[in-house]
């Protein structure tokens, strides 16, 4: 029974991080793609839209870089986040 409880404890954490990063980052990326598409429409504030788009892309890129850093740190024996 304690094994099941331990699994549930891990599951909700993985699910929470999964939803935050695994679903949140593609959504943010999508927001960026949308801003880029809107920027090329007539009458749009192109520089602003483009800035917003690249801001979104950089956050996603930064998160991927953090993920790589996480793998490296984990491999070197450091424990992150938890």
């Amino acid at each position, binding site marked *: 029974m304690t094994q099941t409880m*331990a699994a549930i404890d891990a599951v909700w954490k993985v699910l929470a991080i999964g939803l935050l990063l695994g679903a949140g980052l593609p959504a943010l990326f999508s927001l960026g793609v949308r801003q880029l598409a809107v920027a090329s429409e007539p009458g749009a504030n192109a520089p602003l839209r483009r800035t917003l788009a690249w801001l979104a892309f950089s956050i996603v890129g930064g998160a991927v870089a953090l993920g790589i850093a996480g793998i490296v740190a984990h491999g070197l024996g450091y424990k992150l986040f938890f």
Partner: protein
Amino acid sequence: MTPELVLLVLAVVTALAFDFTNGFHDTANAMATSIATKALTPKVAVALCAVLNLIGAFLSVEVALTVTNAVIRIQNPDGSPRTELLTDGGRPLLMILLAGLIGAIVWNLFTWLRGLPSSSSHAMFGGLIGATIAGLGVNGVKWAGEGAKLDGVVGKIILPGLASPLIAVLVATVGTWLVFRIARGVPEKVMDKGFRWGQVGTASLVSLAHGANDAQKTMGVITLVLIASGHWVDTHAIPLWVKVACAGAIATGTWLGGWRIIRTMGKGLVEISSPQGMAAEASSAAVILSSSQLGFALSTTHVATGSILGSGLGRRAEVRWSIAGRMGLAWLITLPCAGLVGAVMWWIGTSLGPWLGPIAIFMILVVLSLWMWLHSRIKPIGHHNVNDDWEPEDRSTTVPVPQELVR
């Protein structure tokens, strides 16, 4: 030449062969979506995945040495082999590892032949469990962990095996739905072009995580073999040549690409567009990385398949449930099937004596592998046809006879 040396060499070679099939089997986890959406050409995709697996393999050292402790009792908590298994140059322990790995390879190749993504870790643990039951009895297996630490067959395999695909399906469904909801009205061409970048980035992350997670298992097994046979003593380090050989084996396997599985995952399960691909890989990456931090031992394959399925659900696209069902069945039987082969190999290997036993089961492995490879040539799948349209199964179709059999 002594029988001890022969067994040692066969065990190391078999472990490297398993590592190779591990890479081969799992290329699809990271790259199936990028290949299906043509974000990367098939050859570039497998090459990128191989390089990242290679790098990932070198980054992984931490828990490798106690790898078998999760499910069987052949090692002490510090990673050293149990002394009662060290008679005759470690023969009892080496036979369990050799037989178990053969079980794992046979099952990996069989599922590859059928184009089914199944978990290489489950195959390995299944094979080891089977060989352990045969060699040490049911008590040699750690069925459940004690207390609140997830361990044993229940805590390290069954519970994560049930939970991880569901988590991945949910995350990818939500991600895909959000992506399409937010980008509503954006022309499809713009969407595809933008998301290809995101897709390649997230797929690369999955490749790297795979190398870091999976290569270390074989490194741990080979080091255990060396310790048991008296060729290595340090339980805190892995010999450099083992690290290099394992990294090379998994990367070579990845680079050759299990095209049959890539095809099932990229084309068979759902039709994937770039935005779905990115949502699926981001979900896989997030779930794999967060659970490896938590010590929640899930299978990359289960997560990747769940994510791809979820990306279809999130878009309300057609999901080929018959294929999903067959995969689910393969997951359920992976552990017992690999275990059965592992147990049978142990029996054959130990009953034929110290010289012939290990050689005989190794030859069985070679013959079975060759047989399955020849079968794969009947309907070959490679980078040239991996992206062909998925045809509904028609069992009446005549199978073309391969050229080498005609001659």
